[in-house]
């Protein structure tokens, strides 16, 4: 069969891959997008960001309804129809997946369903049910993403031991649910299952949940989790799991003591590994690091001159918006533009309850690197908006360069933190100072005011909290 000729082939149609394909097509390139799954969108759309947020949204009402009794509005106990919930969730994913397909089609991006395999630095073989096709490309962009790691010790072939992929399917509501790993995936899905009524136990090996977030922000999630989860064990390790009838017997270590418990289901959320195997990478000049991620330079070029790589496959922070930015950089590189991705900061958002979001320099990082900073904090107890919806468990903080007063980092914990952080990202990218933020009028009553007031705290004149006066 004649190989298909194309200028650019993109392997993987996640938020990095389809962004790359679309952008390249918009720039007039002939693009083929290869995706092994039926639905486009990758982990983000199918098994990550979107379904988890849909479920968080759905289960939020269970908690909210319960809590509204205190405010004089009570509901009967909610009835959960899991099948219907799954159908609704699926419909959301379907709409988005079709949307991406439609956008691809309108741009003239040819989508090949099948598994991509590099024959050499210029040829990709695409295997599908209908047989195989060969694509001759000038440039390829590898955007194959990552998947949940399941350590061998936990991989018993027991479907009750799940990764996030299975947990998002919500086959049942386990009475006793163990989550191994207190990172963002564990904490987010814990929130979903706790909302649905599971007794959630989180076991985290480190001494903090949400590693990477400043402790004062993560603490607010911890405070809430202590109420809604049955337990969060820090500095604890799961040693062994074994099938025990319809349950899992789990041996763990906590506070120096061995524990043996049984759970109905277990979620293992201990990290992610790149999807770089079975890709024919060995037939190219691509180099991978010791963790299996593809090595790239600032322009997303791999060691193979005709192949670029982006997103989770290249490591760093494994976030969709990082992949999307790298997609543009890679395409610009192929087009010969001088562009190199320029962002100073890639924001991180954890959709726990409350949400945690941060960008730029964190307080902990500043301390580790000995960067002199001043920290300004505005607790949400001073926010009328937060009080009005009864969630003052929030904190907005700024990491400020004491000399130039430039904002180096922003951290927010609280309901809707994920929506608020973008202002912080813009402030950092624009090189804004705390004064700029303080002088910008923020609408009342909104949570966005906490950013302004936080900047005012820095100058010692926040209206709604008592800040120490700054010596002039």
């Amino acid at each position: 069969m004649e190989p298909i000729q194309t200028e650019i082939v993109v392997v993987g149609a996640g938020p990095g891959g389809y962004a790359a394909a679309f952008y390249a097509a918009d720039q007039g390139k002939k693009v083929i997008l290869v995706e092994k799954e039926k639905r486009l969108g990758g982990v983000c759309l199918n098994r990550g960001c979107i379904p988890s947020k849909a479920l968080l949204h759905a289960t939020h009402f269970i908690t909210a309804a319960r809590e509204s009794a205190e405010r004089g509005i009570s509901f009967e106990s909610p009835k959960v129809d899991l099948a219907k919930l799954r159908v609704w969730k699926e419909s959301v994913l379907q709409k988005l997946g079709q949307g991406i397909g439609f956008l691809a089609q309108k741009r003239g991006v040819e989508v090949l369903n099948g598994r991509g395999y590099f024959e050499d630095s210029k040829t990709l073989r695409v295997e599908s049910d209908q047989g195989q096709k060969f694509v001759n490309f000038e440039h390829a962009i590898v955007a194959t993403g990552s998947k949940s790691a399941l350590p061998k010790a936990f991989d018993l072939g027991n479907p009750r031991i799940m990764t996030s992929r299975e947990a998002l399917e919500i086959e049942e509501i386990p009475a006793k649910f163990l989550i191994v790993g207190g990172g963002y995936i564990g904490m987010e899905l814990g929130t979903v299952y706790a909302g649905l009524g599971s007794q959630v136990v989180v076991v985290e090996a480190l001494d903090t949940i949400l590693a990477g977030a400043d402790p004062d922000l993560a603490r607010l999630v911890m405070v809430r989790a202590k109420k809604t989860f049955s337990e969060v064990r820090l500095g604890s390790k799961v040693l062994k799991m074994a099938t025990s009838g319809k349950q899992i017997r789990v041996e763990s270590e906590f506070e120096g003591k061995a524990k043996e418990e049984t759970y109905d289901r277990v979620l293992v959320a201990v990290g992610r590994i790149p999807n770089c195997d079975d890709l024919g990478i060995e037939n190219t000049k691509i180099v991978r690091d010791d963790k299996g991620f593809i090595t790239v330079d600032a322009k997303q070029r791999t060691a193979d001159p005709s192949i670029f790589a982006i997103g989770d496959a290249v490591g760093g922070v494994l976030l969709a918006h990082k992949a999307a930015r790298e997609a543009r950089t890679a395409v610009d590189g192929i087009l010969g533009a001088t562009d190199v991705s320029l962002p100073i900061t890639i924001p991180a958002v954890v959709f726990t309850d409350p949400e945690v979001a941060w960008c730029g320099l964190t307080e902990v990082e500043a301390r580790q690197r000995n960067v002199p900073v001043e920290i300004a904090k505005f607790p949400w107890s001073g926010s009328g908006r937060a009080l009005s919806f009864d969630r003052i468990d929030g904190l907005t903080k700024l990491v400020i360069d004491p000399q130039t007063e430039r904002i180096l980092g922003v951290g927010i914990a609280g309901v809707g933190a994920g929506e608020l952080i973008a202002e912080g990202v813009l402030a950092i990218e624009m090189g804004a100072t705390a004064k700029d933020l303080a002088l910008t009028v923020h609408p009342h009553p909104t949570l966005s005011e906490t950013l302004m007031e936080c900047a005012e705290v820095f100058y010692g004149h926040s209206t709604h909290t008592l800040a120490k006066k700054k010596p002039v």
Partner: protein
Amino acid sequence: MDGAYETFEKIRQSLEKFHLVLRLGGQCVQFCLCGANSMFDMDVKLPKLGEGADSGSVVTVFVKEGDSIRKDQPILELENEKAVASVPSTADGIVSKLFVKPGDKLSVGQRILSVSGGAEGATDATRSNRMDGEISNVVVQSNPEEHDREDEPDVADDGEGGRKPETSQASGTVPAAAPTIRKLALDLGIDLARVRGSERGGRIVMADLKRYIQNLQSRGRGEKSAPPSEIPSGPVSNRIDFSKWGPISAKPLSSLRQVISRRMTENWTTIPHVTQYDEADISALLELRKKYAPAFNENGARLTLTSFALKAVCSALRAHPIFNASLDESSNQIVFKDYYHIGIAVDTDAGLLVPVIRNVDQKSILDLSKELESLAAKARDRKVSLDDLQGGTFTISNQGGIGGAQFTPIVNKPEVAILGLGRGLLKPVVKDSQIVQRTMLPIAVSYDHRVIDGGTAARFVVGLVEAFESFRDKDLA
């Protein structure tokens, strides 16, 4: 932005016309987001040295790889514009890599060494570069394929800006500028760390970038065509083979000598000089000196004629403030200074240096004598810091210790006048219809005739002579 891009495209083209290489593409950009190396290895870069001093050549390197260094510890000696100054470290830690060696040319912002396991500083150093950074030479963006970062120490600065741009700042932050500005700078191969931001917090806006580029252009026109180093300046003169007529030897111009040469040429050609001559009767002054010298010696100071000259000049300057002023040609203003910082020309092995004594009006002759001595010693030992050389409002060049009468000193820009003193000589003088022996001090005041008129100058000189002649016991007690 399209309009702006067009403008910059034009600028870029014209830059290229001036043989400035702006290599587009292939820039090596690394951000501080991640990477263990950048987290804990810190670069020590050449800090801003002083007015007009943005480069120099390395004389001595005091540290080597593996050394443990402290913040503020001198790490190398740099010969530049006016002096040999030691450069202090901006960080604590172990020297993990040294990027310079004696003879290398260094520019502000260029890496000197990296420290590991350190703390503090690199951020400050890079920040101050940006905040106070004088607009500097042309930046040539190196292509990482040709010189990857490890090769950097070998990329010698040719004095014209072969320096490596530091888009990444090891532990610091990217210069404060909007993404559009950063992108544009990247496209043009401009290192924003060198651009001074005018907005709050040092934020760089389009106007700052424009100004910077215009500056590059004017440098391109000026110095580019006649680089100060190596090649003799001015019209290309035919090389003469002096050995035709006998044995010769040659040595390269030191960078200090090059600077003196450039500054003298500039001052002499741009300032219309007039020199006013006179003589002051210093017989009484010498008597006083004889009387008080022992007391000064006891206090560890040498009472010299220069000490008196400082006071005399100061009183004349007070009476004639225009001599203590500067001409600001960019704004067509005369700037009068309410302070009296007087430079003293010091003859050193390497060449002329002019350290400055501050607030002469507020100091006693004893204080001045002490300061003069330590400053002269520092200058001769080449330990004068750049601070010591800056901010002068008037200069005194006293050649009396060597000999000779009047001479024509050249005004030391941005000052507007300079006093040259010769050797005091015993002369027959008519006084009260009698011929008497007096010691007469030859005085010569050169001044900038654009700013100072002849009459004013004559009055200044008369006042100066009077000041020399009217020292009393109370001035020394």
